């Protein structure tokens, strides 16, 4: 056991050198939901670390102190009736406390906050014309993740910006709410969103299972082909946040990455308008080409 303990310490020592430069927490949160996740992480990792250290310490002490030595007789006691009752009591209370903490913090993560003062102003979700998803998805399944996500905003507040994020092997497609349904705006790989704005993502997939995860902006959400899951974030700072899929989806799965580019509101509006214009221009070109081909 001493040997084992020494080895474990040696392993820790080897680790200590590069570990100094590393973070011990999750990636720096830039959204209220990511902040709550980070809180949950710190509380639970502290508790787990305490349990791990305590159990291992007591185990090593017991094994060293009560190892066989000359003259030592094992005292053959065992638990009397109800001897474990305090242990069960303490553990039950601890489990209950963690459960209550878990429920509260989960609700906290799910709750969509209204957009801030610098964010995009009210955008009625009803006009989102691109909600119908390719594949078998229907809007009925939207309640899958949270009942209170998009509709919770009371009339006085601005509704969150709803964007469809659709996964496929091995890239994300983001569909922005267009200014008019006739000219859709979508992009691949990189999602551009306005700062300080509540963004609700409707996440689905057109082929296999994938997952959406941008660590700075919240937790993972599975993208399934016939369900629409929702998540949200409100980025507090302009910047480019990397993300990646965490569900094995075939041979090129590691390149299933994504980036969220958080920009100022005006920049976002320009970007979407530009996207829509470019796309309609491209479609016109395609249409004329097709007409030409048909004529020939």
């Amino acid at each position: 056991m001493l040997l084992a303990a020494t080895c474990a310490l040696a392993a820790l020592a080897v680790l200590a050198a590069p570990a100094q430069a590393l973070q011990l927490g999750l990636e720096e949160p830039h959204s209220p939901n990511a902040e709550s996740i980070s809180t949950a992480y710190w509380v639970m990792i502290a508790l787990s670390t305490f349990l791990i250290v305590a159990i291992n310490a007591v185990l090593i002490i017991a094994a060293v102190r009560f190892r066989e030595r000359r003259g030592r007789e094992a005292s053959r006691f065992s638990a009397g009736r109800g001897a474990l009752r305090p242990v069960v009591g303490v553990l039950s209370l601890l489990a209950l406390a963690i459960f209550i903490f878990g429920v509260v913090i989960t609700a906290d993560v799910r709750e969509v906050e209204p957009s801030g003062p610098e964010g995009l102003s009210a955008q009625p979700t009803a006009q989102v014309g691109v909600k119908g998803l390719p594949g078998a998805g229907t809007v009925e399944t939207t309640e899958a993740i949270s009942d209170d996500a998009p509709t919770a905003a009371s009339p006085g507040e601005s509704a969150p910006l709803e964007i469809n994020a659709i996964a496929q092997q091995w890239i994300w497609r983001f569909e922005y709410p267009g200014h008019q349904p006739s000219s859709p705006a979508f992009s691949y790989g990189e999602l551009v969103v306005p700062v300080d704005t509540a963004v609700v993502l409707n996440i689905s997939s057109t082929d296999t299972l994938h997952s959406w995860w941008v660590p700075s902006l919240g937790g993972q959400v599975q993208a399934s082909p016939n369900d629409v899951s929702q998540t949200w974030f409100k980025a507090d700072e302009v910047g480019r946040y990397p993300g990646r899929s965490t569900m094995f989806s075939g041979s090129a799965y590691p390149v299933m990455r994504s980036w969220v580019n958080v920009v100022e509101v005006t920049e976002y509006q320009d970007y979407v308008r530009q996207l829509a214009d470019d796309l309609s221009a491209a479609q016109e070109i395609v249409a004329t080409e097709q007409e030409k081909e048909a004529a020939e």
Partner: protein
Amino acid sequence: MTPPTLSPGRPEIVTRGVPVARAGWTERATSADHKSVGLLYIATALVFLALAAVEFALMRLQLIVPENSMIEPEIFSRLLSASVVTLVVLFAIPFAIGLIGYIVPLQIGARGVALPRLNQLSYWLYLTGAVTIYATFLYAAPETGTLALPPLSDTTFSPTNGTDAWIVGTGLALGGFVLFAVNLLVTVQRMRAPGIAWRRAALFSWAGTVACSVLLIVGPAMIAALTMLIVDRRFGGVFFDPGEGGAPLFYEHVGYLFLTGAYLIVVIVAAGIVSEILQTFSRKPIFSHSAVGASLVAVAGLGLLAWMQSMYIAPLAEGWTIMAMAFALALLVPLGVLFFSWIATIWGGALRLRAAPLYALAAVSTMACGLAGELAYSVIPVGWALDNTTASQGDTLYVLVGGGVFGGFAALHYWFPKLGGRLLGEGVGRLALALMLVGIHLYVLPMFLAGLEGQPVDVFEFFGDTGVDALNLIASIGAFVLVIGILVALGNAAFSWSNGLPAAGHDPWAGATLEWFALSPPPPHNFDAVPDVRSAEPLHDIRESVRRRAESWRPPARLERPRPAAVAAEDAPEPAAAATETATEPSQERPESENGSGSAPVA
């Protein structure tokens, strides 16, 4: 020896049809004896442990530097798809089954198992399944990931026959395990020796029973899901076809139910092993026999109900995830009672630090790391952040290596003399343990940090811009040390099987449970006679009563005539010696065997 002659006037009593043990391999392959089948299970499972370790090392070799192109993505996907099924279905479960199938009938004082042919069939189904899975490397190995989740395992994305073979092979192996579970549950229910009430059954028998019950729940469910998958793939089914109204989520549920069950089996069987070893080597009864038994049952029940704890990111209604969190957190109570009982068992004892208890302590320590980590991931937001990252994967590996490998080798060190009459090499065993302990921590800790940085599982490459280069390098080195340790431990077992030191007697550790009452290795019928069982430690009772009788023995009063001193000295310890022989080394040649009518013939 003179040939028997016919002597008229005296009836001749001859036994006919007693099967004679055949030459090595034939006997091994055809015997329905639970010990023979158990050994086959253990040996095969250890071969697959070596394979899983090598696959793991290869994958870590690929991940040693960023954007490495040493192993092609397709090859990596094949290794990945093979490695988890190898570790869980072809090593962890069958290894536990081998130990359970060998030891539990002995512990309950049975002369065999209830359904020996079913037991035998279960092994051959397992082996057929394993060969089916590995034969795919000859034509088209599957690239469907660890659990073959549809739609990725549909014919659209995985058109090759290899995926079919993977599904069928896994199903066959699971079918075998279910048959084994049926056999074992019938055996423990019907064939316990008189006096072995459940409260007196050895804790490893408890663990084996609970583990088989878990297997009986998750096994058929997973077989059903695999069947549906093969129907989808080859017979036009739409169970999991999203385009046709199928539900891939359903397969995910069953798949995670199965993986949770396998995880629990590893934990429960390791708990049983640790309980036995700590009792024997600290020369104390377990702190609370009933609490440990009840905790094993509770771990199984609560753990199974918490299967959705692995699915927090899936599209589930909110209530389901909360329910899963409640059950997962409730596991804290029985698991805490287990850890408390183990430490309280060591406390006040005299722990002989041989290899077996060292492995058991390493199993407790490593499982504590894994299970406490799992507690953190049970809280939904933490799961959202860290599920499917190398952090949670490392945590799972703590439990699989801590329970399956450390616990498994603890059991091997403990029961090796029983299996073959020889000791498993101590020195090399300790070296292997040190290597594995260094390796597992050196692998998991950097992987935990990389998971915090967002490294997902199952990737064949990581990118230089994600800041996890150094971590992956250290983790790879740790993985190599771990794999070397595993291979050293396996080599040690292979070498010691025929070349190990002979064990000191049939009961080298002075065990308290009935398996140590049998010879080492036990004869086909296990016991000539089974002692009266009046507690959870029947052999300890026998030793105590022998000791008491020896202490209280006085020369009978009527022997008043003085005798020569030498004769008296020779005479005095005789009853004790005779009784000890009955207790620890039941003689095979005892003329009147009390129970000659066991399931196997008396040799």
